[in-house]
């Protein structure tokens, strides 16, 4: 009788341990990170509708004929420049005109009645936002537009540049004094 009890006890113990290990599991984690990234590609002339622009040379956009040869007043010019870009987090776009207009290189004084700077308008589109930067050439200074974008955006930053016929920092249709006129536009994507 004592032998039989011992045997039964042994069988019961084995049965319990077997049920506990009929299945075995191992878990793994797969982890990574994505840093806050903003990137802007080189500019490209897009849309095929550039008027009175020679095109892009590297990052320089050159007006073909800045002055009307008959009146010496500003000729109209327009172009669309695009930049492939991406920002993987909420960010700020800054569009900056370094001189607030196309300004003639430093040189001799400006005779009365002549213009030495040309205003222009830059309109931008970036994902869900649009903005306008009026470089009015009323003073030579930095003019900057900041736009907060509360989401990641990828695609193209589109900048439409528009120089009106006859535009100047003097009166309308004022003749442009001879010289090279230029401005530098900077586009920056940065954390808010």
């Amino acid at each position, binding site marked *: 009788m004592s032998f039989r009890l011992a045997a039964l006890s042994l069988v019961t113990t*084995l*049965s319990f341990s077997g049920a506990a290990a009929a*299945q075995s599991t*191992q878990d*793994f984690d797969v*982890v990574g990170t*994505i840093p806050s990234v903003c*990137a802007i590609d080189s500019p490209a002339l897009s849309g095929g509708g550039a008027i009175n622009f020679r095109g892009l040379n590297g990052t320089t956009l050159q007006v073909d004929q800045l002055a009307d040869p008959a009146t010496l007043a500003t000729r109209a010019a327009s172009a669309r420049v695009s930049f492939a870009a*991406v920002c*993987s987090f909420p960010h700020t776009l800054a569009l900056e005109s370094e001189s607030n207009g196309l300004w003639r290189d430093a040189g001799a004084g400006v005779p009365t009645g002549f213009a030495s700077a040309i205003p222009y308008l830059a309109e931008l589109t970036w994902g869900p936002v649009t903005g306008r930067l009026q470089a009015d050439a009323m003073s030579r200074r930095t003019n900057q537009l900041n736009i907060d974008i509360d989401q990641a955006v990828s695609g193209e930053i589109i900048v439409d540049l528009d120089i009106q016929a006859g535009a100047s920092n003097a009166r309308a249709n004022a003749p442009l004094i001879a010289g090279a006129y230029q401005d530098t536009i900077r586009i920056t994507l940065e954390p808010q």
Partner: protein
Amino acid sequence: MRRVFIAAAVWASLAASAAAQDTDQAGPIPITGNAPTFCTVGALQGADNVFDLGILVDTTTGLLLQSLSAPPKTLTGAFCNTGSTISISATPIEAQTLTGAPPSGHSDEVDFTATASGWTDVPAVFSTANGANPQATQTRATPFAGDIVVSIGSFETAGGSSLRMLADPVYRGSITLTLTTN
């Protein structure tokens, strides 16, 4: 002559009675045991159970890196003492702090494929991009002991490869490997 015969018979009877008192017998007693069905995935080699992919994107484009990889992980000493089934499942690698749907053109999820090989002739494979994963479960009819190697690969941006990945300090997915007796 008659007396002699009786005396011999009595002696023989007494001898038989003395033997019954010294030995006894019980049984036969059957001794039975049951070796239970048993599986273990064995011991995980290496420091931890984490596949660390590092930075997931090309920081100049924001697109998922095509070169993502992580070393496989090995489970040594796995065994089953009967026929068994190995199955693997996984969840996509998701941004852990972002909320809401990603803006247009973006994704916050990476699909991948997890593979468990070494246990069955055909590896168990689970792809988080697939709605159904019939290859994720494989069976073998015989007991087996050996190593199981778990690897990951075939990383894809959920929603399409043209989508940019959203920034997030922690992206996380998971894999579960299970051995079960048949």
